[in-house]
């Protein structure tokens, strides 16, 4: 399979010279099993260019099928959807997957993204056939030859991590999540930052431990682990309730799960290319010194990786 990054930024798109190399578009990754339709993970602003490139293929004639896995519906993960060209071509089929809500059907959540007065084109006016699929933690399903599994993460309003197994390789997409140590993030707004390293209620600690164990199990042996590393340790200490991790947190999961490559992802909007270089090099150095068996890379727009049967092809 091939994996290509179309948007690597968290929270807000950040155009400008300072982000030209890593890219300013928000979250979007394309996974393309060999000879098959694309599986898209998240629909931040990066999906706009991906959609345009897809229109050069069968999607341009309304003969394409795409699957979109949404980690969660925070704006930086869905903002690009109304600008996804294949939606506007009759005949295309798009399946959108996301976690089931406790109160609202997924289709209503996505419909409200583009209803009046927020956007001129309502969901009902799109010409492709769009089907919404609600997931619960642990859901397993197949997209063509690909096997997809998911587990929940520690993020406000809850995000999902996905694993895709196909062509003899496995990737895991794990964004957005806080580490599983200081606060449980679900449906409650947390006004005051909890103390990092403080003592947790035993029930909360158990739930977090179980969530983390689920993630580590899902990451087991993956060729590529794409992980939310938006924060530096200082930023995390100030905002542990915002639902993002540091490279250290990602290293621990990567080590325990025995992955082959760890990919830093969901870069902070304020991070310049130079600052991101520093974070990448420090993380690589740390892992080299510690003798970690995995490689560390950082996602940037346009990065394409070939995995499994595709390697060397």
């Amino acid at each position: 399979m091939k994996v290509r990054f179309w948007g690597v930024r968290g929270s807000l798109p950040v155009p400008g010279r300072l982000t030209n190399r890593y890219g300013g578009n928000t979250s979007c990754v394309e996974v393309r099993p060999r000879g098959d339709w694309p599986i898209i993970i998240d629909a931040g602003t990066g999906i706009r260019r991906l959609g345009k490139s897809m229109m050069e293929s069968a999607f341009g004639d309304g003969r394409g099928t795409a699957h979109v896995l949404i980690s969660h519906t925070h704006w930086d993960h869905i903002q690009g959807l109304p600008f996804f060209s294949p939606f506007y071509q009759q005949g295309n089929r798009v399946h959108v997957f996301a976690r089931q809500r406790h109160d609202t059907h997924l289709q209503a959540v996505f419909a409200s993204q583009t209803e009046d007065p927020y956007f001129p084109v309502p969901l009902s006016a799109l010409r492709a056939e769009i089907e919404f699929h609600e997931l619960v933690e642990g859901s397993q399903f197949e997209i063509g030859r690909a096997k997809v599994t998911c587990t929940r993460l520690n993020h406000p309003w809850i995000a999902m991590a996905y694993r895709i197994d196909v062509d003899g390789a496995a990737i895991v997409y794990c964004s957005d999540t806080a580490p599983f140590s200081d606060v449980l993030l679900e449906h409650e707004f947390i006004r005051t930052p909890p103390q990092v390293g403080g003592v947790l209620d035993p029930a909360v600690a158990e739930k977090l431990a179980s969530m983390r164990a689920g993630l580590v199990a899902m990451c087991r042996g993956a060729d590529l682990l794409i992980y939310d590393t938006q924060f530096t340790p200082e930023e995390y200490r100030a905002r542990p309730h915002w639902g993002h991790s540091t490279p250290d947190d990602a290293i621990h999961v990567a080590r325990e799960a025995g992955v082959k490559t760890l990919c830093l992802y969901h870069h902070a909007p304020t991070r310049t290319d130079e600052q991101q270089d520093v974070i990448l090099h420090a993380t690589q150095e740390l892992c080299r010194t510690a003798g970690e068996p995995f490689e560390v890379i950082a996602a940037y727009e346009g990065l394409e990786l070939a995995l499994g049967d595709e390697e060397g092809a």
Partner: protein
Amino acid sequence: MRVRFWGVRGSIPAPGPETNRYGGNTSCVSVHTASGELIIIDMGTGLLSLGNSLLPTEFGKGAGKATILLSHAHWDHIQGLGFFAPVFIPGNQFVLWGHAKSSSLLEGILEGQMNPNFSPLYTLRNLGATVDVRAVIPGEPFEAAGVRITGRPNPHGSTTALAFRIDEGDRSFVYASDVGYAPGGPSPEVLELYRGASALLHDCTYTPEHQEKRRNRGFSSYEDAADAAARAGVGRLIMFHYDQDYADTDVDALHASCRAALDARGGQAIELTAAAEGLELEI
């Protein structure tokens, strides 16, 4: 008054080296009045940088006050609010004027973007600063930031967007983004709003060819902008809200074509500026 552009792009932010010069952030303009008050027009992604630039001022201490004018609530005009640092500092006070049948309806629209489905902020109530939301009555001038402001709706696809005129002494600045006129151009009331402005910032999303293909979206071509400027007899026309697919070189071409369109309409005396992120103009 001093006008500065923080975001000049339409519809969706367009990051990448090809937009470095004009900028890829969505609509956001600041106006500093001669008496030192701050007016912010639209809250696209450009608001992030404007907010950070205000932190060394009284806004960093929770003692800032500003007026916000909202043309309409399409996402590219409101997305920056949750990333505007001064709005998280208790003590700062914002009065936001926009278009709705009532101020509570407008507040509800802004609440919609903070909905926990879309944002970790959950509600406007979680912003530390106060945001006092008020509905503009079309054509009825109001006093804010020590100046006189008038708003009038323009057609914008299936909806409308407010154009604003700010008058301070003998200087006037008009902001008219996101407008797709009916055949015949601006309504008499809107033309009156533009009339004789020192500077008219106008929607200039497309070339006429692109606009022809996408007219139902409710944006202007450079010809529409040149028409409006020439007919209203403004001092300067400012091009704004470029299509997300236009690279810097496309905007350069748009600029040259707009100059020719102005000249062809007897507007040789009208100065022409293509808005770019970071550009500042003394009106």
